[in-house]
């Protein structure tokens, strides 16, 4: 099919394209300018590279991964984050479903959930370490503690806000509660679940890093604390940068997962 494009439309489209390209170029420029300026100021001794580090030293630290075990620590943090994220999302959704099932229970637990939600979960750190031992388990529990309550509240609110008319529709076919949940309420809230996942991947990482700060055995959180204590700012900066990249990549993984889930749901066979 061939579309006739007027000159005005062509102008409009190319303007839009140019603007998009300009934004991208500016973003890249800022990144490189920042890196260059950082390196330059450190080389000119305007910044003290002992406490600010500099990009070339960060690169060297990364290349030196065999001695500093950077990737081992990266893997530990990634692993703990993913487990915390999966458990938080899964257990949170299951608990929210049970609370939806029993309106009585959801009314009863509401104040408790709100208190737990407002409580800064990091404060539980020492307790968790005593209970779960100073290791990976404690860190995962920490990640779980941070993401669980948010997931429960968000999913429960979504479930309860399901269009009443869709539920009435199911009732006109004499649907039971399980059918209403599986055919109406849960599918209506897939987007709520995906939003919860987008929040959880970040929260889980917060939990893991603060857990690693406390447990201090392995992981990027441990490297940051350790690097700070022995004044190896190269290691701290490198860990922070890698952490940033990792967080962004995990978020994008959830975005890709979103597309897969939606496609799967729309295509599901009877």
């Amino acid at each position, binding site marked *: 099919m061939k579309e006739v494009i007027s000159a005005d439309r062509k102008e409009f489209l190319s303007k839009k394209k140019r603007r998009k390209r300009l934004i991208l170029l500016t973003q890249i420029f800022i990144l490189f300018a920042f890196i260059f300026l950082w390196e330059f100021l450190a080389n000119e001794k305007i910044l003290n590279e002992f406490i600010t580090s500099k990009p070339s030293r960060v690169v060297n630290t990364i290349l030196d991964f065999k001695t500093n075990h950077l990737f081992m620590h990266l893997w530990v943090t990634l692993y703990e984050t993913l487990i915390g994220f999966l458990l938080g999302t899964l257990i949170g959704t299951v608990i929210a479903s049970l609370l939806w099932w029993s309106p009585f229970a959801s009314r009863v637990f509401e104040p408790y959930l709100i208190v737990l939600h407002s409580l800064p979960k990091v404060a539980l750190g020492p307790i968790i370490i005593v209970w779960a031992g100073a290791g990976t388990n404690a860190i995962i529990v920490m990640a779980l503690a941070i993401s669980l309550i948010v997931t429960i509240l968000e999913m429960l609110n979504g479930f309860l806000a399901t269009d009443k008319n869709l539920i009435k529709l199911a009732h006109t076919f004499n*649907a039971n509660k399980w059918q209403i949940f599986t055919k109406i309420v849960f599918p209506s809230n897939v987007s709520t679940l995906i939003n919860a996942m987008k929040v959880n991947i970040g929260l889980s990482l917060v939990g893991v890093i603060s857990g690693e700060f406390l447990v201090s055995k392995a992981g990027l959180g441990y490297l940051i604390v350790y690097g700070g204590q022995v004044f190896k700012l190269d290691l701290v900066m490198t860990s922070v940068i890698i952490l940033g990249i990792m967080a962004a990549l995990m978020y994008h993984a959830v975005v890709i997962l979103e597309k897969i889930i939606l496609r799967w749901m729309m295509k599901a066979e009877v």
Partner: protein
Amino acid sequence: MQDGLMLDHISKVYQDDNSEVLAIKEFSYAFSKGDFISIVGPSGCGKSTLLSIISGLEKPTSGKVFLDGEDITGKVSNIGYMLQKDYLLSWRTVYRNVLLGLEIKNMLNEETKEYAMNLLKTYGLGDFINKYPSQLSGGMKQRVALIRTLATNPSYLLLDEAFSALDYQTRLDVTNDVYNIIKKEHKTAIMVTHDIPESISMSDKIIVLSNRPSIIKNVHGITFNIPNRTPLNCRECPEFSKYFDSIWKELNTDERSNFGGQERVS
């Protein structure tokens, strides 16, 4: 017991924190098979409650509902119910939307699937079975919703202001479509509406209800002196405005006599 749907002295009292409200009082009526019956009345008079009671979604406070002699009070039986909007599930294709009722009622098998598919094809949706609701026009969505209801093969259909969400032009078309489908499939339809012309154009009988508490004020038999009556062509008939005038008058005298009033028990 007689065949068909019968309401026997149905009353409904609603409770809330402040008071009790008597919505329907001693409603009795036998709906004859094959008819298209409309129920009109002032807004808030309990028309929709009546449909909910027939469908079994709500229990009457007293009275009974019989279907072919069987007491179905408070039970969801095989009576189709069309709600105020299409309420199609956005994540399902047209075909899978139509199968929803069959799935829920555990009636899904090759035979019922084929029946549903035939309905879609017969009523002009054959090319759209793999489309999603967002890709259809308002009128088509309403047709899909009707076919979803028909797929479980109910003998009775309840329509609760089923066209109120559509714009005027679409509404006329859809009314025509739905009327033809219902007549062709030999269904008995009970429609609740506040649109008098719509009720006249589709119905064989019109029940006029009073203000709360609802009682039957009058039942009009609607006939037109034309062959092949449709909701569109009967609007041209001289009888149309005659029916309109008398129903309009009945509804309005009601409002004046009960001005601002809601009868309260206790």
